[in-house]
């Protein structure tokens, strides 16, 4: 792949005696979407932190061909005492961009709300907008939907995919949910438990219109994936 946005070679990470990541190799293309599924504690968040420069102590080689990254955390991480607009200008003071993404994420009219006045789904939408306004070339989603209801979750995923079609950024999604992974990715990486390795790299060959939880092809892909995860975990 000539045009990789991220290239990882033999990445290893341990916390003291605890070996967490044990030799990962992967490449992500410029507008590719990948999802990672793995048992909890296998180092997914640690990997994302390494990519986002929050964790600088590791072994291996990482080549980053991007300048701007958007990080959607598992919890909203909004500053409680300032409103939605102030939370956004805090990271990137560009009103036009903010207005654009607020609209795309259906948050128009909520600019003056405090985080505590928003529902869980809306907080995660603000979390997403905050990640998007810097115009990231790589968007990271670290289990951002795990606390949300299904319909809320799928509505947000649809909006993310729409935006990605327009703006062509790469996405790395970490999730436990197979449906979520298929909806949000072209490729799914399956991780083993700690010390973790990438044990499967599965291409998702679905058209965008087939990425619909009631589509036959989607259901096929889902049960296929479930089977593989089930076998691998035995």
């Amino acid at each position, binding site marked *: 792949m000539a045009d990789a946005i991220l290239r990882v070679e033999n990445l290893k990470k341990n916390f003291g005696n605890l070996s967490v990541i044990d030799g990962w190799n992967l490449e992500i293309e410029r507008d590719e979407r990948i999802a990672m599924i793995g048992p909890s504690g296998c180092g997914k968040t640690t990997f994302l932190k390494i990519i986002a420069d929050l964790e600088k102590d590791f072994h291996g080689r990482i080549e980053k061909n991007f300048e701007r990254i958007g990080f959607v955390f598992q919890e909203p*991480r*909004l*500053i409680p005492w300032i409103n939605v607009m102030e939370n956004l200008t*805090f990271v990137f003071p560009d009103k036009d961009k903010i207005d654009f993404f607020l609209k795309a994420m259906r948050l128009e009219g909520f600019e003056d709300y*405090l*985080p*505590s006045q928003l529902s869980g789904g809306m907080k995660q939408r603000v979390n997403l907008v905050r990640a998007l306004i810097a115009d990231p070339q790589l968007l990271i989603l670290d289990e951002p939907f795990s606390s949300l209801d299904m319909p809320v979750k799928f509505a947000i995923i649809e909006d993310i995919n729409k935006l990605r079609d327009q703006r062509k950024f790469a996405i790395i999604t970490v999730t436990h949910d197979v449906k979520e992974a298929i909806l949000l990715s072209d490729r799914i990486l399956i991780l083993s438990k700690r010390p973790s390795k990438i044990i499967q790299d599965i291409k998702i060959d679905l058209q965008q219109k087939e990425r619909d939880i009631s589509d036959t092809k989607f259901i096929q892909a889902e049960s296929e994936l479930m089977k593989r995860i089930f076998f691998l975990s035995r």
Partner: protein
Amino acid sequence: MKILFGILIFLIAWQIFAAILNVPLILPSPYLTFKSLYNLALQQETYQAIFSTVWKSLLVLLMVIAIGTPVGFLMGISESVYQIFRPAITVVQAVPVISWLALVIFVWGIGWKGPVVISFLSLLPISIFTTAAGVRSTDKSLIEMARVYKVPQVKIIRTIYLGSLVPFVFSTVEVIIGDVWKVIVVSEYLCGSDGIGVLISWARQYVDVPRIYALTIIAVTLGIASERLVKIAFKKVLEKWQMQS
């Protein structure tokens, strides 16, 4: 209603106790005490004393917050500043009031400066440590979020650290406002030239026990009233801060 009932019970118990004990030098009856309170209400010097105690208390409160907050803030964001300042402040906290008294009388004699300085010194450590604890408890996940987006340090301090400090400043005021009266009155008693503490010390010289009780009622009322007032005033503001994001 229940509160009034409670006060009534308290007064009755007091009356009964005073009657049984029958030593007005230790426990005067409520009747004598309130008569004395009534007399106080007729005297202009009472109001001068209250005014004097109130403004000293406010001055101390202001000084404690003005010095305690920035020092505590620096100690909160830097571990080395914390380690450097902590011993000195711990010592200040442990010095008995009476030692300050000796020093203060030596320097200023009898007057308003003594009570103010003594009260300031005895309340400052609480303010500093509360503030430092507040800064140290700042949500690290918010700081991490800001670092991902390369938000400048100045902005992080202004918005996240200072913001998370607000409830601690308020709770420092809440804690101190209850104590400041007591400390001021004691130090007025010991080295003041005016104020409620001074009136108490005079009443003691004339062995006018009901008057001492009456003055105590005034001091207690001031303390409770100001605490309540602050609580009500802060409640609205603090709701915003205490809610989870």
